[in-house]
């Protein structure tokens, strides 16, 4: 069993490392494979084919291939978003992380980690988002009715 403290430390380290390469990214689906390419194009609201969109709390837009929805880490991210913000019908999905952290997570997802690493990562995501909560106020979507 992995120590929670150690995991928290890991998560922080990832965030710091990712911060070194802070940049705006979007992912575009390649036509032949489901691998992704990182581009530095400026954020736009153009609708990318075969993609879904999430925003981070610092309002950075990410477009991912639909195949990412089958990834268990990504599924967990969406669940965390639901717990934090509820299921909002009126706008795009927001994840309760900043873009730096999400970029770092994506790198892990792309590397196709083994089961244990994935478990450790999932646990550390849950701990890491606690430190993100104060930022939640930044996401500026209007109020909606939903779900229940």
């Amino acid at each position, binding site marked *: 069993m992995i120590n929670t403290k150690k995991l928290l430390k890991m998560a922080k380290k990832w965030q710091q490392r990712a911060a070194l390469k802070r940049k705006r990214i979007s992912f575009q689906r390649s036509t032949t494979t*489901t691998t992704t390419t990182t581009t530095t194009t400026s954020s736009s*609201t153009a*609708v*990318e*084919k*075969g*993609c*879904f*969109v999430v925003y981070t709390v610092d309002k950075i*837009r990410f477009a991912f291939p*639909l*195949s990412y*929805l*089958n990834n268990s880490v990504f*599924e967990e991210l*969406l669940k965390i*978003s*639901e717990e*934090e*913000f*509820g*299921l909002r*019908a*009126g*706008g*795009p*999905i927001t994840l309760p992380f900043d873009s730096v952290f999400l970029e770092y997570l994506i790198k892990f997802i792309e590397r196709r980690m083994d089961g244990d690493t994935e478990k450790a990562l999932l646990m550390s995501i849950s701990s890491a988002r606690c430190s993100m909560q104060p930022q*939640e106020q930044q996401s500026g*979507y209007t*109020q*909606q*009715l*939903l*779900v*229940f």
Partner: protein
Amino acid sequence: MVKPCWRIGAGMERSKINPTKVDGLTWYKDLGLHTFGEFSMAMIQANSVMEDQCQIESGPLTFNNPTVQGTFVGVYDGHGGPEASRFIADNIFPKLKKFASEGREISEQVISKAFAETDKDFLKTVTKQWPTNPQMASVGSCCLAGVICNGLVYIANTGDSRAVLGRSERGGVRAVQLSVEHNANLESARQELWSLHPNDPTILVMKHRLWRVKGVIQVTRSIGDAYLKRAEFNREPLLPKFRLPEHFTKPILSADPSVTITRLSPQDEFIILASDGLWEHLSNQEAVDIVHNSPRQGIARRLLKAALKEAAKKREMRYSDLTEIHPGVRRHFHDDITVIVVYLNPHPVKTNSWASPLSIRGGYPMHSTS
């Protein structure tokens, strides 16, 4: 990518002459005939298990008075699981018939009693299952029922589904909302709860810019949700996220429907009944305009598609991509949606339709892997 292997079952039908269809996650009946005209139904699944249920029943509304003929329409939007909405679909219409038979007519009291007894019986089931299946205490459902009978339309609502009437007016059609809704994000629903619980400062809690009853649920009335009706369920082994920190004596949620009665006029063209999954993407007037300006065949599916297109737009993605998403993870993109359009004729379409009662149920059984 894994091929989608989900589908909603073909629905339960007791009438073989009214086939219903399934296309991927969509269940539909494009056009059918009820006592007072035509109707169209459609549902789409987003949750891993379909939580919405619906039904249409047409024919005698009592067991003992054949002159009381009409149409019953129900939309049940479940939450926390499908058990409560399925229970309503199994029970509410027989109960309505039972109470209507006692007074030999349909009335507001008859409908309200059918709601109350359905809730009471569901809570009995929860009590029975508590030792083996305690999470049943956190399952609930909205319940919207419409009864068309004797030139009147009764709309009874518990929760936040909605019924909207399309009334023709100077070349167009005007949306008239018939249902009263119970959602904490409506001022009227909040006022009601505050006045019922004046000594509870946490009866309504604002969380992420949305009001929730006790910080946990948005609807202020429902069928089920035993954990918010009886304190005996507010304890282990109920999951901690549903347990309230303080004891309560008075039920927090009620199952009482708000009932409106409208006398139908020749200008009244149709009624749209739908779960909130539709209304969070389409306004009353938008929905009514679509129905007024489109052919009747497949109108419910057309409304469904219009709502999904809007959902895709809000999520900044293509509609065609949205339709590729599997149930379960799909709940992050839109809710389960049920829509029924009932066209109105002032008089029964044909007297011989009385002889063959209609009964169609949608959304059950749930998806299955094939």
